[in-house]
Every structure is written in structure tokens, then in C-alpha cells.
């Protein structure tokens, strides 16, 4: 085949190879441009030392992103990656002996990779064998690992042999090739080998369409299990690398790497949901994100603008990565041109004469239901909802009983129930927004700073005056609509993946919040708002009454309105939804607007609850907002879930936190218990039939 290839087929093969690796190639060229820009702007030319520093700076993220990419290619999602890096760092730093500075590189690298693979096997068991949703399993694992890491090492310290550092950060060829690049190269070579095997084909097949893969005889349980183990190994290696780089241990070192890891994967051209892309692009993506640090430094971007600049760069990189003839933006532009042409020619559907073009179907189809077929019984109609929503409520009951036995004063104490509902109200509101986004198969990561900026602006405008609340509240909600519109438009019209778009929006909002407040949020809640969130009318706080109304409206919105049906339709299949005449673009934009409005509402409520707004007040609500939706029985890939289930998830997690807060257990133990309970609660949600 090699010897007889004609020029034509070479051209075809080359074009196909280019097309297939477009994501990685574009990421590579963006990286090259950034390197060029840094080289051009900074005082001196880029030397080998700069390259060496850059390569070691990006290596940890790159290695972890390789693992994450493999998981995502298989259609999964791994939130435990950052926690694995912390754990490996803690294990290495606490078990090496500072008295004997020499250490075996092979041994400790194997230990790190082994720890990572063990965690991967834990994840893989629940995901592949028990068929549970990756996002819940890995979220639980994340909590458990954070607890375990603090048990291994409760504060920064420990010792990692300098031998490890000089090996991993040194030169492979002095003056020419830094070792971090070699390490990444070796891992990528291993990936290329793997990709060529039957396992590699199976991996892409499972990620593209698990049912079809199973139908052609692929053992998808084994493939999925192996994917998490391999990915765990990659995180383990990343943990070894960061240990070598820092020379000591810190139990929190890996946690903040998680979100940027996803950004790296997406910037590198891998599609969330699986089947398309590869780790090479993710490596470039990781380095692009690291380069941003240098760009901001050489441009001397002011601190308050840093997150805005980062967000913008992220969007631009994602845009550059997606621009092509078939990209969403190009399609939208072509569609707009076609509409314009049709409008000029006067043949736009809305310009045509209004004639009823519906099919004439006679008979009872449109009329009354056939009397011979009574509607199915209530429990039958709602069996699906019950099956997925019930486990959360059963677990809630168990937690409340345990609270009663352990701490007393729960079941018969109206104060307990009131606290439970007040504390749940924030997540209950967020769950509607985040839940609706998840039902369409997206994810809203801009929640934290939508909360933050809403609270800060509201507190600043209200400044203790009830009268000001009357206009401040609408202003904040309109602003939230604009935020949601921006998110939705970016996703729909520019074709940017929801994770990247909302992550960028989050950074930009953070910058705006800092600029608006100059670092010190002013103002405080008005007496009425505070009364609403903290006073008691008899046994209940006023906000509880609002919650009842909110829940009823939310159930109606998702279950009984055309909007709700469109949301489920999109989540079950974008193309099918579009072909059945759903205005997908409009619906998606509305969904992100709903999410932003819910987040803004939470910002307002938190301001009333705390009495003032603070920077970072929304930071603790991102992961829980996703967790409650999934614990409540929703499918992270969209299309399945009920608001009442999500509400059950909210109540369950809040009751659990109240139980743990009432004890004096150490934080590490609480984190582990929290993870285990979440894992146990969703055990019942697993798919019954194997695919």
C-alpha cells in the first residue's frame, strides 16, 4: 500500500488526516501564535530557558488533561482528577524520608501512577460495572479523596526527594530538549500505540454510540473500566510531576486544576460527550492556558482585568479552534444570508400568504380521547419520575432519622425543618436553572459570579433602603437576563461549547464585579429583604412560603408548558428536536437566561440572608448545584429528570450537611462520609438494563 499510492490518494489521505486532526492542528497554531506574540512583546528573545520553564509549567495540566481527554472520548466525565493529583502529592511527600535524600525515580513514579490507577479502578467499578453516572461517581470520589488526602497530610509540608525534581525538570538533551516535553511525548506515544489497538477503536466507538458499540460485540463494561484506570494513571503521573516540581506536599495543590483541565480539553478540540478529538490537542490546550499567564504579564494587564482577559482569550481560542466551513458560526452566517435573500425575494415563510397547510386528518386524533381507552393510572403515568426521584427522598428520610437519633431535636422540632427549608432554598432555586440547562445537555459554570455580581450590585444599589429595593431588584434581574443571553448566544450562534462559554463568562463577570466594587463591595441588604430571609412568622421564615410557590411554578414550567417540552425535546436529541420544528436556538437562549435569573435570585437571597454581599459569595454553590440535579435523578447528558427529584436532592444534601455540622467529627471524616452518602444515594439510580 505504501509503495503503490498514487498522488491523488496521497492528497486525499492528507486532507482526511488534516480534517481529522483539525482540532489539534488549530490548537497547535494558536499556541505557536501565542509563543510568537510573547517572544515579540517581551524584552528579550525566547531562550531555551524560557522554553524549559514553559514546558515544566504546563506539564502537570497537560498530563492530567491527557487522562481527562481519554475519559471524555469514551463519553465520560471525571471530576476526581484534581483530587487524585493532591492525593498523590500528599502520599509522596509524607512517605519519603528526608533523612535519606536519594530516592528511586522508578519506584516513586510507580507509586504515584499506582495510586491514580487504584482510584481509577474505584471510579471504573461504579461507572462501568454498576452503570452509574460518571459525574456523580467522580464527584463523590472527589469528596472522599479530599478527605483521605487530609488524613494523609493535614497541612502543607513533607519532603519530596530532589532526585525526582532533577529528573523530571532537568534536560533530556542539555540545551535542546527539556525533560517535561519528553515525559509528555512518551505518554502521547503510549496513547498512539493504544489508539491503534482494538481497544483504541473500541474506545472511540463507545464514546460515539455506546448502544451500537455493544451491538457489534464490544465489551463496553471492560472498555469503560479500563478508561478510568488509564486516566487515573495519567493523573497519578501528573501528581508525581507536581511533587517533583514543588519538592514537597500540599493537600490542596491539585484541586484548582480541575476546571482549567476541562477548558484545556475543549480548547484542544475534543468534543464533550465523546467520540471525537484526542489528547494531542489537549496538550496544546493546556499549554495555551499556561501561556495566558505570560501574556498577561508581558502586557501588564491590571489585576482587576486579568480574569476578563483570560475569559476573552479562552473564548477566542475556542472560536479559532472551531472555525471552519461546517462550524456553527459559518452555518449561522449562511442561514442569515439565505434569510436575507429570501426576505429580499419576498419568499420568507412569514411573508407568504397565510394558508392552512396542515394535513387534514379526520377522526378522533385531535379530538377527545377514545372512551374505550381510559387514561393510565396515576402511578403508571408517573412511574419514571417516581423511580428516579424517590431514592433522594428515601435517603432524606434516613438522614433525618439518623439526625434525630444522633443529635436529637429533629423530627418534632419545627426549627429544624424551618432551617432545612431556608438553607435549601438557595440550592432549590439554583437547581431549576442548572437543572434546565442540564436537561438540554449543557452545563452552566457561570453560576458563581452571576450570584456574586448580582448580590454586589443589589447591595450597592439598595444600601439599606427598602424603597431602593423596588427598582434594584428588577435592574439585577434584567442584568441576569443579559448575562444569560450572552451565554446562550455564544453557545448557539458561535457554537462554543457550554463549558467553555460559561467558564469564560464566569471569569469576565468576576472582573466586572471587582471593577464595580473596587475590591470592597459596598452597601448592605434592606431591612425588608433581611426580614424575608431571617425573620420568623410563627414557625416559618417568609422565604419558605416563597419556596412553596417557586416549586409549584417550577414543576409547571418544566412539566406543563411548551417551553418545558421543548427543553426535554432538545435534551433527547438535538437534531430530532430541530426537525420537529422546535426553535432550538431560541429555546436554548431562554434556558441560559433562566439559569442566570435563578443565579441572580440566589445572589439577592444570599445578600438578604447574610445582610451584605461579598466577593466570592457564590463560589461554594457551583459543584453542589450540579450535584443536586444529578442526585435528584437527572441524566447529565440531558433529556431525563424532574424538578421534584432535584428538590429531593437539594433537601437530602442540605440535611446531610446539617447532620455533619452538628457533630464534632473532623473535616476529613465529614468529607469522606459526604462522598459515601452521595454515592450510596445514587446507587438506586443506576440503569437497570445493561446497554
Amino acid at each position, binding site marked *: 500500500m505504501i509503495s503503490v499510492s498514487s498522488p491523488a490518494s496521497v492528497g486525499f489521505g492528507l486532507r482526511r488526516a488534516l480534517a481529522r486532526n483539525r482540532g489539534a492542528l488549530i490548537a497547535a497554531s494558536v499556541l505557536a501564535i501565542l509563543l510568537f506574540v510573547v517572544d515579540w512583546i517581551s524584552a528579550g528573545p525566547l531562550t531555551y530557558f524560557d522554553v524549559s520553564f514553559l514546558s515544566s509549567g504546563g506539564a502537570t495540566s497537560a498530563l492530567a488533561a491527557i487522562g481527562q481527554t481519554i475519559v471524555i472520548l469514551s463519553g465520560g466525565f471525571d471530576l476526581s482528577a484534581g483530587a487524585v493529583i493532591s492525593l498523590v502529592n500528599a502520599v509522596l511527600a509524607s512517605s519519603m524520608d528526608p533523612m535519606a535524600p536519594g530516592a528511586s525515580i522508578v519506584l516513586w513514579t510507580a507509586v504515584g501512577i499506582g495510586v491514580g490507577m487504584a482510584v481509577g479502578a474505584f471510579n471504573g467499578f461504579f461507572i462501568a460495572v454498576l452503570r452509574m453516572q460518571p459525574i456523580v461517581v467522580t464527584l463523590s470520589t472527589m469528596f472522599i479523596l479530599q478527605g483521605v488526602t487530609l488524613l494523609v497530610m493535614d497541612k502543607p509540608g513533607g519532603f519530596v526527594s530532589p532526585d525526582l525534581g532533577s529528573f523530571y525538570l532537568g534536560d533530556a538533551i542539555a540545551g535542546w530538549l527539556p525533560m517535561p516535553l519528553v515525559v509528555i511525548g512518551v505518554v502521547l506515544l503510549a496513547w498512539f500505540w493504544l489508539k491503534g489497538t482494538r481497544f483504541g477503536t473500541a474506545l472511540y466507538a463507545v464514546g460515539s454510540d455506546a448502544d451500537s458499540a455493544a451491538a457489534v460485540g464490544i465489551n463496553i463494561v471492560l472498555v469503560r473500566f479500563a478508561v478510568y484506570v488509564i486516566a487515573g494513571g495519567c493523573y497519578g503521573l501528573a501528581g508525581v510531576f507536581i511533587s517533583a516540581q*514543588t519538592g514537597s506536599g500540599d493537600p490542596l495543590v491539585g484541586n484548582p486544576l480541575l476546571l482549567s483541565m476541562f477548558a484545556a480539553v475543549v480548547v484542544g478540540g475534543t468534543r464533550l460527550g465523546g467520540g471525537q478529538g484526542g489528547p494531542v490537542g489537549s496538550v496544546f490546550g493546556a499549554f495555551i492556558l499556561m501561556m495566558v499567564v505570560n501574556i498577561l504579564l508581558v502586557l501588564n494587564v491590571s489585576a482587576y482585568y486579568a480574569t476578563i482577559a483570560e475569559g476573552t482569550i479562552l473564548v477566542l481560542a475556542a472560536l479559532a479552534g472551531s472555525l471552519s466551513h461546517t462550524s456553527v458560526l459559518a452555518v449561522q452566517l449562511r442561514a442569515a444570508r439565505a434569510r436575507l435573500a429570501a426576505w429580499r425575494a419576498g419568499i420568507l415563510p412569514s411573508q407568504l400568504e397565510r394558508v392552512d397547510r396542515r394535513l387534514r386528518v379526520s377522526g378522533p386524533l385531535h379530538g377527545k380521547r377514545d372512551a374505550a381507552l381510559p387514561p393510565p393510572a396515576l402511578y403508571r403515568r408517573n412511574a419514571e419520575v417516581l423511580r428516579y426521584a424517590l431514592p433522594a427522598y428515601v435517603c432524606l428520610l434516613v438522614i433525618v432519622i439518623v439526625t434525630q437519633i444522633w443529635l436529637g431535636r429533629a423530627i418534632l422540632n419545627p426549627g429544624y425543618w424551618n432551617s432545612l427549608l431556608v438553607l435549601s432554598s438557595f440550592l432549590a432555586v439554583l437547581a431549576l436553572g442548572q437543572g434546565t440547562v442540564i436537561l438540554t445537555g449543557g452545563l452552566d459554570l457561570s453560576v458563581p459570579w452571576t450570584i456574586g455580581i448580582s448580590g454586589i450590585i443589589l447591595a450597592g444599589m439598595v444600601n439599606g433602603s427598602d424603597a431602593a429595593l423596588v427598582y434594584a431588584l428588577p435592574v439585577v434581574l434584567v442584568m441576569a437576563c443579559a448575562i444569560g443571553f450572552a451565554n446562550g448566544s455564544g453557545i448557539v450562534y458561535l457554537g462554543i461549547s457550554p463549558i467553555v462559554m460559561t467558564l469564560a463568562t464566569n471569569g469576565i463577570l468576576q472582573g466586572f464585579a471587582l471593577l464595580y466594587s473596587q475590591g470592597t463591595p459596598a452597601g448592605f441588604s434592606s431591612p425588608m429583604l433581611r426580614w424575608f430571609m431571617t425573620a420568623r412568622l410563627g414557625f416559618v421564615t417568609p422565604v419558605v412560603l416563597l419556596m412553596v410557590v417557586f416549586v409549584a411554578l417550577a414543576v409547571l414550567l418544566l412539566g406543563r408548558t411548551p417551553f418545558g417540552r421543548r427543553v426535554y425535546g432538545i435534551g433527547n436529541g438535538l437534531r430530532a428536536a430541530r426537525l420537529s420544528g422546535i426553535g432550538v436556538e431560541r429555546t436554548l437562549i431562554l434556558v441560559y437566561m433562566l439559569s442566570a435569573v435563578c443565579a441572580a435570585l440566589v445572589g439577592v437571597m444570599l445578600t438578604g440572608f447574610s445582610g451584605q454581599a461579598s466577593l466570592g459569595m457564590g463560589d461554594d454553590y457551583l459543584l453542589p448545584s450540579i450535584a443536586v440535579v444529578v442526585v435528584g435523578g437527572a441524566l447529565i447528558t440531558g433529556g431525563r429528570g424532574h424538578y421534584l427529584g432535584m428538590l429531593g436532592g437539594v433537601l437530602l444534601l442540605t440535611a446531610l450537611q446539617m447532620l455533619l455540622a452538628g457533630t464534632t467529627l473532623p473535616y476529613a471524616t465529614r468529607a469522606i462520609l459526604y462522598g459515601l452518602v452521595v454515592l450510596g444515594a445514587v446507587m438506586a439510580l443506576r440503569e437497570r438494563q445493561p446497554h
Partner: protein
Amino acid sequence: MRIGLKIRRLALLAGMAVCALGVSAAEAAEKHKIFLSMSYIGNDWQAEAANMVKAMAAHKSLADKVDLQVQVAGPNAQRQIQQINAMVQSGAEAIVVYPISPTALNQVVKNACDKGVKVFAYDAEITEPCAYNVHIDQLEAGRVTAEWLVKKLNGKGNIIAITGVPGTSVDDQRTKAAKEVFAKYPDIKIVGEAVGMWSQAVARTELSKILATRNWNDINGLWMQVGCFTANSMQLEAGKKASELLPCAGEGSNGGRIQMLPEGTEVEGAAPPYAPAGAQRISYASPPYSGALALKLAVEAIEGKDVPKTTILPLPVVTNETIKLCDEGTWAEMKAGCNAFKPSLVSNPGWFASIFSDQTPEVGLNAALVGQPEN
């Protein structure tokens, strides 16, 4: 389309670059190039500390000596490593850093020292011996506050502890030191403990969770790293009178300081709960001026003066005996002993009020609020 976009982006970058170069080339001729590497900027303490550093750099005694560039590393130690490397590469003479991790930066800091760069860590510590550290003694903070609480309770009672960010050295040292004190008194019982993340908002949710199964009347005292202002507000909401507020050992937020003033004191802009209540308090803090002081010391070190490797700041402690309201909040006024600010000047009660140091006459209230130095 794609090419067009990239060209536009390049043009934009080039424009920004020309501005940056133009400014720095003109000004930085004889100035010391100093970088500030901050952590996560999205919380009140960090923003306040950054304002004070900027004010220090803008003060007339330093303005024509220092070219300060501020960069944010976020919560990510890996990025801070990268950032410090880049700062060294671009010719920093000194780097002032809020270290995200006391250990993870050691290698990169050592590398910077080897190239002659002075590295100053403020508030938290860098364990690499060549770094300069400016911070309070966290063990002392935990011990002093716990001893105060034990004394207030006469060695007997149920207390609630709200800690900081788990896994950090600062939280570990404060909590351990406090628990050692409590352990000496068998009648002191910690009946509830929660992670407060050094945030008033988190303190409120955690306290609400604890109080769902408990009653304020079962509790005799509070030991909190951050959250006394919130705890007092919650007690007032629950119907307690100001005279019944529980003794609380905790942070130096301005809201908490105002509550310490005797009930009925006339204070401009005060509105409950951000109002005098005679709350029994000991108020301590990791002072946000540490970054500004670190910058000042860094300039001294560059100029060849002898600067000690570790500067332990005196623990700023305010009790009901020493609380005093400032009028304008100038440095001179604070030197005379005032330590709380009017709500009409500081509208955020969570704002950290321990901004006075003998060693930093360059910065006062306006420095912390808006980055304006004293005259």
C-alpha cells in the same frame, strides 16, 4: 474569516503592547522593577491587601523608585509557579508574593533567589529559607484568643468552633493552638465545629446548620476564625438583647469592631446589626497591611539595607477595653489608638479593620479602601 480574526487580534495585542512598552520604557529607566503575585483576588481580604500594596507603591517616598506590576495567580499554585518564573525572566528585582502554598513554591523561589531576585512573602509563609517572610504568629493568634474565651467563661461551658480553610498551615496552626488551650480545661466542651472558610457568608450558613439542632441557650461561647459579626447578628435576630450576646473570640472585621462599642454610642451611618451593641469580643486579625510592608522592605533590601528574613508582625488584638472609634482613619489618628471605622466610611461590615502598623505611616484608611496613600 479565520485569518481576518487573527490579524485583528494581533493588531489589538500589538496596540496594547505598544502602549505597555511606551509607558514602561519612559518611566522604568531608573526604577526598581518589582512584581506582586497575588492569589485569588475574589475575596475581601485579598482585595484590601492589594489596595494597600498599590497605595504603598504610589506613596511619594516610593513612587519614583518603584515600578510595580500586579499579577493575579488565582487559587492555583501551579500558575503561581509559572508566574514567578515569568517575572524572574522579565527582569524582576524583587517579587512580593501572597503564597498560595507554603511549600509548593519552594523550588521556583529558590531559583529566583539564585538569580538575585528578592522574594517577599506576606501573610502566609514560604518555607524556602532564602525567602523573606512577613506575617503574624498564627499559633499565638489561636492561643491568645482561646485563652481570652476560657477566661470569659471562667473555664467552664459549651463552645462552638468555626475554623478556616482546611488543609492550610494558617488554619492548622490557629486551630491546633486553640484546641491545646481548650484541652487544659476539662469543663470547656466543643459541642459543634464547622469549616468557615474565613468568610462571613459561610460562617452564617454553617452556624444555621449547627443551630438547627441546637439552641443559643445551650451555648456559652464562640471561637471563630471569621464570623463573630455574623454570630452576633444572628443572636440579635433570634431575639437576644445586646447585653445577652455570647462572648466571641474572632476576626477583626469592622462590623465586629463597631458591635464592640458600648450600646447606644452615637456612630455615623450605623444601622443594626452593623451598630454598637457592647458585644463581648476579642478581635484579632492577619493584618492586610502585611503586603504593603513587604513591598517597603523589598525596596530596602534592593537598596542594600539589612532586612531580616522573618518579620513577625505584632498580633493586632482589640478587646472591649481598647476599642476606639476613628474619626477619619488617617494613620496619625490610628497611631493615637483608634481601631474601628464609621459605617459611613466603611459600608462593608466584613471589611478587615486591622490596617494599622507603626512601620507603615504611608498607608491609612484610604489606602485600604481605594488604594490612596497618606500624604
